[in-house]
């Protein structure tokens, strides 16, 4: 049974359609895997087992009649940011205590309409603010990947080992897993951890500054943030409305393409949803990239970046070159301003979006001596440290006299960042290749990051530019570092050209292979 959890979505889809397996069997396999693993990984905050079984039964009835949608019977995990009707939806915040919406987000409604099965709600940084999943009210998520130490032992000649093993001399290597718990990245840490540890076939996620791509890179999974406007934001708890986009995290490029096809739609309920048909992303996979122009931006070579990241980038360049792509050096001169501009725009929009949590309409209420005292006590008790920090920054930069100096300046800089990309694309570049993150996964409760919020923010240095410009970006695993941790590369595309990202990411995947953590949980 447990092998069913190792099927990719495309493999499971074929077996379900051929009636070699049932939706109930695969759903039960995942529920068992979650039950065993969740105490160690904390990826799920709610397991919707009854609902999962009902949905699986309904899928089996359809499949038996030769009917069913593109995801019929495929068990998925849903980030807690997505509104799910009648089911816990709290953005992993205490302030939304007990909230069960009476509506369904457009993205999840699309998935259910295509036959997907919901396994539960996934852990995340509170209100999607964080890069380590440590700001969740429900506690940190643990990365299924651990560092490992490679020991090389020199074997004496004619040594009788414990297993009756006889060596003629030479060396033997053994990998030992380190016990230190690592973060899965954030904010979609639960999504990444669950996909990587085989606790769902794929997951929904959202990305405001890197929250899909950084956790994907930290867990050896594939994550795509589509172009702003591709997936409806309706029914997703808002963080920074001009940056938020939903996307999938999956085990391989094809699965990510299958999921995005279902999640994306034109939605009259979201005025920023773009009126363009959703292409068949899967059809782009396997198309040759011969003659494609791949841009390498020199500004992504940052100070203090580990040699391993640079080496990985060079490997990626070589793979694409081998596949016939033309590599060109490009310049995106405003890259370094993306992160500071983000830390004005995102908190400003967040302070406005999060004003609604006032203890009146939903969630937590802490009584006070009057209504303002009630608001202040509710918000003090309901929001965690990182969320308060960002609301405070946002309130400050929007306060009287500072709007022009901060928010307006940042939105202008944002236009310059976007222009940099436009210039590259106008010059004929089809896709841009960069590292996904400046490091591999780090430890839970890392002291440096806890002491300096800006250090944590630097995790998003390569991904945030893409949100600022509204472009699509995909993170694809490309190798392991010396300690055995996954590292990812990022591809950035033209607006609404997700197809080129899938096409190119697949070439990297073919060269790099896919990566699975060694099971310890």
């Amino acid at each position, binding site marked *: 049974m447990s092998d069913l959890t190792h099927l990719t979505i495309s493999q499971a889809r074929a077996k379900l359609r051929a009636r070699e397996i049932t939706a109930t069997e695969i759903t039960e396999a995942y529920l068992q895997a979650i039950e065993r693993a969740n105490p160690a990984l904390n990826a799920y905050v709610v397991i919707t087992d009854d609902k999962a079984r009902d949905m699986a039964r309904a899928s089996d009835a359809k499949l038996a009649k030769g009917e069913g949608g593109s995801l019929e019977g495929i068990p998925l995990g849903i980030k807690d940011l997505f509104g799910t009707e009648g089911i816990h939806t709290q953005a992993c915040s205490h302030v939304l205590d007990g909230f069960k919406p009476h509506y369904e987000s457009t993205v999840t409604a699309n998935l259910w309409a295509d036959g997907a099965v919901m396994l539960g709600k996934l852990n995340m940084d509170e209100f999607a603010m964080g890069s380590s999943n440590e700001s969740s009210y429900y506690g940190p998520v643990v990365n299924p990947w651990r560092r490992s130490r490679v020991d090389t032992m020199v074997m004496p000649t004619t040594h009788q080992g414990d297993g009756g093993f006889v060596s003629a001399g030479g060396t033997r290597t053994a990998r030992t897993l380190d016990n230190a718990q690592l973060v899965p990245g954030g904010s979609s840490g639960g999504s990444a951890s669950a996909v990587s540890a085989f606790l769902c076939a794929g997951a929904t996620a959202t990305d405001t500054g890197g929250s899909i791509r950084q956790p994907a890179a930290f867990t050896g999974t594939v994550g795509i943030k589509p172009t702003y406007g591709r997936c409806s934001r309706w029914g997703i708890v808002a963080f920074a409305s001009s940056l938020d986009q939903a996307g999938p995290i999956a085990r391989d490029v094809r699965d990510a393409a299958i999921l995005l096809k279902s999640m994306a739609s034109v939605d009259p309920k979201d005025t920023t949803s773009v009126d363009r048909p959703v292409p068949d992303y899967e059809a782009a996979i396997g198309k040759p990239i011969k003659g494609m122009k791949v841009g390498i931006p020199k500004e992504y070579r940052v100070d203090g970046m580990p040699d391993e990241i640079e080496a990985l980038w060079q490997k990626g360049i070589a793979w694409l070159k081998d596949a016939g792509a033309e590599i060109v050096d490009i310049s995106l001169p405003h890259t370094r301003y993306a992160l500071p501009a983000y830390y004005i725009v995102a908190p400003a929009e967040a302070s406005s979006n999060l*004003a609604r949590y006032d203890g009146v309409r*939903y969630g937590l209420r802490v009584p006070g001596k009057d209504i303002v005292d009630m608001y202040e006590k509710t*918000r003090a008790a309901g929001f965690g440290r990182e969320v308060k920090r960002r609301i405070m920054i946002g309130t400050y930069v929007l306060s009287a006299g500072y709007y022009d100096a901060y928010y307006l300046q940042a939105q202008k800089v944002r236009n310059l960042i976007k222009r940099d990309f436009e210039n590259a694309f106008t010059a004929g570049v089809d896709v841009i290749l960069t590292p996904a993150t400046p490091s591999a996964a780090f430890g839970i409760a890392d002291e440096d990051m806890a002491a300096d919020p800006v250090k944590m923010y630097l995790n998003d240095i390569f991904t945030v530019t893409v949100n600022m410009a509204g472009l699509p970006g995909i993170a694809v695993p490309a190798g392991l570092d010396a300690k055995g941790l996954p590292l990812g590369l990022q591809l950035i595309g033209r607006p609404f050209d997700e197809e080129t990202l899938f096409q190119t990411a697949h070439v990297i995947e073919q060269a790099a292979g896919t990566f699975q953590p060694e099971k310890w949980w």
Partner: protein
Amino acid sequence: MSVDLQTVKRVARLARIAVSEADAERMTGELNAILGFVEQLNEVDVSGVEPMTSVTPMEMKKRPDVVTDGSKAADIVANAPATEENFFLVPKVVE
């Protein structure tokens, strides 16, 4: 630009978040670290640059001004901490 303790308390008040003296002191340091980080934006020449409004040029969507939804007061108050007959209950605001 940097903030002092008084400014932090004023911003907390604007944001409707109760802060203790110790919270406000800690936040002052954190906010100044972030404000120090974003300060580098001032070196960018933005003369003649419009603020960004959308990724691809698009016209704002409009819809007919008609009622498409409603008659679900019970749903709307369903998650509220305190209600009475489909009204939200709050502490008394007028004497």
